[in-house]
């Protein structure tokens, strides 16, 4: 993790005019309150670090406040806030000399695309006497294990999973939030799922949750 001081979001420039007048501010606060907990959860899954998530929520709300007059339809406020958070996060990474992805991102992890957790469990058979082999595998994972594996997914592939699986956006909506074509979103979603599957298996093996066939050999 980077130095705590480096993690801080840069202070937004103070404006001579108020960001929002009282009536707008009250309206914005109402919109923000409706989505605050989900926004924090989104930021936490995005950054995987509580301190970064705190800063990101704050930066998101400040940016949203400045752009609030552009929000035409309050029913789309959640996606609007998540899009602002995503852009703010990208800016944070850029400021630290990192990026969510590079031009070659869609070529990343191509080998993992064919990995099947379902099939791997059948082949490795970690619970020879189980009637529920696959479900028993999933039962091995505690909440913190899931969080660790999920956090290890490449961010550009994790984002579509967070938006669709966790927050219930459609693929089309998620593509809009991430400002990518639908085909790109679907491709990244697939990669994210595959990284999740492989991540769960690797985590189980590395942490001794399962014993593989090879390790049984004398």
């Amino acid at each position, binding site marked *: 993790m980077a130095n705590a001081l480096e993690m801080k979001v840069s*202070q937004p420039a*103070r404006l001579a005019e108020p960001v929002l007048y009282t009536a707008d501010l009250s309206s914005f606060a109402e919109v923000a309150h409706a989505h605050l907990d989900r926004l924090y959860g989104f930021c936490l899954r995005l950054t995987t670090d509580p301190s970064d998530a705190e800063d990101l929520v704050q930066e998101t709300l400040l940016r949203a406040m400045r752009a609030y007059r552009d929000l035409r339809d309050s029913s789309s406020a959640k996606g609007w806030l998540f899009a602002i958070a995503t852009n703010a996060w990208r800016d944070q990474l850029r400021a630290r000399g990192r990026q969510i992805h590079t031009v070659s991102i869609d070529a990343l992890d191509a080998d993992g695309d064919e990995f099947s957790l379902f099939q791997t469990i059948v082949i490795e058979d970690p619970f020879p006497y189980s009637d529920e082999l696959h479900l028993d595998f999933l039962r091995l*994972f505690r909440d913190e294990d899931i969080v660790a594996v999920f956090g290890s997914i490449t961010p550009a592939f994790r984002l579509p999973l967070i938006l669709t699986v*966790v927050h219930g956006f459609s693929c089309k909506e998620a593509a809009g939030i991430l400002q990518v074509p639908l085909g790109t979103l679907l491709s990244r979603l697939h990669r994210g799922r595959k990284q*999740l599957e492989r991540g769960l298996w690797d985590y189980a093996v590395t942490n001794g949750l399962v014993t593989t066939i090879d390790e049984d050999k004398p």
Partner: protein
Amino acid sequence: MIDCREAVRRMWAYLDHELATQPVTEFEAHLETCQRCCGELEFSRQLRAMVADDERSPAMPSHVRSRIETILAAGDVPSGEPG
């Protein structure tokens, strides 16, 4: 009739309700004849639910909520507060 490979390819989209009517019909027809894919669908459903469980996300800490409330009331980061 689609094969197992195609059924598996459609599985998460099916769970996400992202498949169009015809692919759903084909997928469900395959499930009626394939116990293996029924098992993988149930596994994928459980796996998806495990990840989707938003309860895994810790609640917003009280000090963060307090800071946010101050910003929402003031319309900006109050002077003296870290950004």
